[in-house]
């Protein structure tokens, strides 16, 4: 079969970065167009194919942050540097970073939801008005934090609020859900400000409620959805919501449209 | 009432009860497999109203007992019962004389595959076939049929308990790994299934052939075997000395062999029954306890060709409390 879209290609693992006990970023060789928010179907040995968001884009590489689940062992995760993984993609629409070039922007990301917006945040941090860009990143606990080096960099360039749901005694950082920090954002014009929200469904739901309270318009909010996806091609059906295929039409949506999604 | 001169032994063999009410008896209707046609049931009602007290007892072994019949009416009742005997195709050497024996008890069966979703075979048909095979006989033998391992017929209380089995057939090409069979085997049965590399693997040692996997499979990846199989459990009993549950004897047995083995048992009883047994009645299990299981098997297997799938327990150990040895 020529041009079989299911046929994966081998991609060399250029680097493996361990964030937590469970989450690793694989820097994979990849040449081609790719945008933050898009995803690859990654064949994870001993597990199977899984849709993984692009968490970084380099020259000739993409970063894929993979959470270890089920029967995937540490050994598989750590041994792979210099070897290869099978990929296909990129799939989905991804974020249009140009939308956030001028004016105030708030990115709210929870847990692994930071992966798909990492590229967006990196772009924001390079923009001339970076000081009008706000990022609220939340993790379960200090040991669950992803992209620690990035967080340090971002802290210098834009307005980062880093928070954890809970922490051991003696932790000096913010403790609390991301939603707690929206009300106090010192925005000049919330009605025109843009927001990006990515994370687990309850976190997205309550974040959007807070943003709307703050004065955000639905049409200025962008969300990215995570669903089970076996193909990325609009065939397997798992990701469908109403008449929308998240893999084809998303995973990034304007909230004005996505607010009608009912699973 | 005239002078009564009744041979109680004959009365009992003729399937009438020796009643505590002097001058009265009860007529016992055999219903092999527990299925009776409505016309015969009508006849039962008629007899109960004509000779009895308008009361009908449903017995523990799926028979009917019409109480309150005068001993002097037995002949008339026997004439009336003929229609039921004919309709239920009960073996009988002489018409109009009622039931020729009562020692071998009514052969019972759960509703089985005629009605029950879990029934692995037509229990009623097999019970009727068995009845035909061994009745009339004065020896005290209890046989019970149940459709699956749920054992709703409580066959483990009988001398011979026949439990339906199916050998699940797996078509991996139809399996979508929905895990319904695995979950239900675990919850409703013995947990003999497991998912290996996306397909289901059956632990054949653990599997009891209950067919739960087949009933719950949504794609027909699991189907029943063409052959019906049986688990034969033996020598269960109630009673005063040593009540006990029947134990597994043969797994994956076939119908023909079971019919033959039960038939063979009667010759064994004739040979070894205690000649002084009260009322010439002795549970087979006690005879087996006396002769040893090996001797019993020798008689049982005479002329029997078990199928290739049959697994025989060469040694069987029964439990139950021995009240005769250790008291209550």
């Amino acid at each position, binding site marked *: 079969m020529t041009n079989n879209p299911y046929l994966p290609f081998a991609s060399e693992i250029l680097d493996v970065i361990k964030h937590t006990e469970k989450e690793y970023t694989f820097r994979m060789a990849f040449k081609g167009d790719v945008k933050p928010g898009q995803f690859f179907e990654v*064949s994870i040995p001993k597990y199977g194919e899984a849709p993984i968001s692009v968490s970084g884009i380099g020259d000739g590489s993409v970063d894929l942050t993979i959470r270890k689940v089920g029967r995937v062992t540490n050994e598989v995760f750590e041994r792979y540097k210099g070897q290869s993984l*099978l990929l296909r993609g990129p799939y989905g629409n991804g974020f249009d970073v140009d939308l956030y070039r001028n004016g105030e922007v708030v990115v709210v990301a929870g847990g692994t939801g930071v992966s798909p917006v990492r590229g967006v945040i990196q772009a924001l941090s390079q923009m001339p008005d970076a000081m009008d860009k706000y990022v609220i990143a939340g993790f379960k606990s200090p040991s669950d934090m992803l992209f620690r080096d990035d967080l340090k960099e971002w802290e210098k360039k834009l307005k980062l609020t880093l928070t954890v749901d809970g922490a051991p005694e003696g932790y000096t950082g913010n403790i609390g859900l991301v939603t707690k920090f929206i009300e106090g954002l010192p925005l000049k014009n919330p009605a025109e400000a843009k927001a990006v929200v990515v994370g687990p469904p309850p976190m997205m739901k309550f974040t959007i409620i807070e943003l709307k309270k703050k004065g955000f318009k639905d049409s200025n909010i962008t969300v990215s959805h995570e669903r089970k996806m076996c193909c990325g091609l609009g065939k397997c059906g798992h990701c469908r919501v109403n008449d929308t295929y998240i893999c084809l039409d998303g995973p990034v949506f304007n909230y004005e449209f996505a607010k009608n999604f009912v*699973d | 009432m005239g002078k009564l001169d009744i041979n109680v032994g004959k009365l009992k063999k003729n399937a009438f009860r020796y009643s505590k009410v002097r001058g009265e008896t009860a007529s016992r209707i055999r219903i092999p497999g527990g299925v009776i046609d409505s016309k015969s049931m009508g006849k039962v009602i008629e007899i109960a109203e004509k000779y009895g007290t308008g009361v009908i007892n449903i017995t523990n072994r799926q028979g009917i007992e019409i109480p309150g019949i005068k001993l002097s009416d037995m002949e008339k009742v026997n004439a009336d019962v003929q229609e039921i005997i004919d309709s239920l195709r009960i073996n009988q050497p002489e018409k109009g004389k009622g039931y020729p024996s009562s020692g071998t008890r009514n052969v019972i069966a759960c509703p089985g595959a005629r009605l029950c979703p879990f029934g692995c075979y037509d229990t009623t048909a097999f019970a009727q076939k068995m009845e035909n095979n061994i009745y009339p006989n004065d020896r005290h033998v209890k046989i019970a049929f149940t459709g699956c391992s749920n054992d709703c017929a409580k066959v483990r209380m009988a001398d011979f308990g026949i439990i339906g089995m199916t050998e699940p057939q797996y078509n991996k090409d139809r399996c979508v790994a929905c895990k319904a069979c695995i979950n239900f085997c675990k919850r409703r049965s013995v947990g003999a299934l497991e998912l290996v590399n996306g397909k289901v693997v059956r632990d054949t040692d653990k599997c009891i052939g209950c067919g739960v996997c087949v009933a719950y499979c949504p794609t027909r990846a699991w189907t029943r075997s063409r052959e019906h199989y049986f688990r034969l459990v033996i020598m269960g009993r109630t009673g005063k000395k040593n009540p006990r549950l029947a134990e597994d004897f043969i797994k994956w047995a076939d119908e023909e062999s079971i019919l033959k083995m039960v038939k063979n048992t009667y010759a064994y009883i004739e040979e070894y029954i205690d000649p002084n047994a009260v009322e010439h009645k002795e549970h087979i299990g006690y005879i087996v306890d006396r002769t040893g299981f090996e001797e019993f098997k020798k008689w049982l297997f005479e002329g029997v060709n078990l199928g290739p799938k049959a697994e025989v327990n060469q040694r069987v150990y029964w439990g139950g409390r021995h009240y005769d040895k250790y008291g209550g």
Partner: protein
Amino acid sequence: MGYVLSRDTFASLISDLSQNYRIFAPVRKKGAGRFTDVDVVMYDNVSNAEAIELEAKSDYSSKEFITPLSETLFYFTENEVKESDIDNRPILVFGRSCDIHSLKRLDQIYLDNGLAKDPFYKRRRDLVKYVLIGCSHSFENCFCVSMESNKCDDGYVFSVDLADGNVYSDVPDPAFDSYFAKYSKDKRDVVPKYVTENEVKVSVTDSVPHSIISHTLWDEYTTRCINCGRCNYVCPTCTCYTMQDVFYTDNGKVGERRRVGASCMVDGYTDVAGGGQYRRKNGERMRFKVLHKISDFKKRFGYQMCVGCGRCDDICPEYISFSNIINKVSQASKEAE
């Protein structure tokens, strides 16, 4: 043009055709049903006419050749991914009007949804020609007339109708004319039988309001439905599948990739890595399935997904009637207006 054949010459025709075509047809499987001594009618390869069940509606649909319940797509080794092979001989699939109408729905997803055609679907689809089994009467639970799939004007190479001991065939595909001409002298116009009325009727509303999603009508299915997925597996228009990787070796580098039929009613359908799950309640799953069949598919593609074959109602072990739900939705939609 059409032909009349005796049952015997029809048998000869089928055995002749089986020299050049594989034949995939409904077959009565003795005792292979859910319960003891209960038959099931489902699809299988046949080589003679006697094996084909032309009278009863099949319990499972004809989609099983084009979208098998389980199919290996790739074999992978450490350095190589190899596509699986299939038997490339052409195949005749016997199906009723509903089955032929369902093909358009399968094509819609596998060939036309998204940018890429599904090559594993296409390689099977390209081998298939349909034989229409006429319907002289409606079966229990059929509501094809309401769904406008009761009649086939095209999409089949020849038709088969049993009547007065003979076989009546319309043969629109000239490539099959010679087969028929060989076995029948009785050449005449034949119109495949189709039903014009079903006992079960549904009225599908054109616009299902958004409020239906939260309507209480779904609640009873949370307890009534046992989420077994039979309705999906028998549905001629359900296309969902799940990818399954199988590993022959401990390191997970050698194995095969399969896809297996998926059901939106069955646990695991929405599971995402890390334990996330959508639609936990069976009532929500029912709503998701029903609205796809009679509303969401149409919003995207312009026509109804459901073909009204009623197989879901036939097979439901809990006596849930899909057609009844359609009518409930229509009623509730009317009330919402």
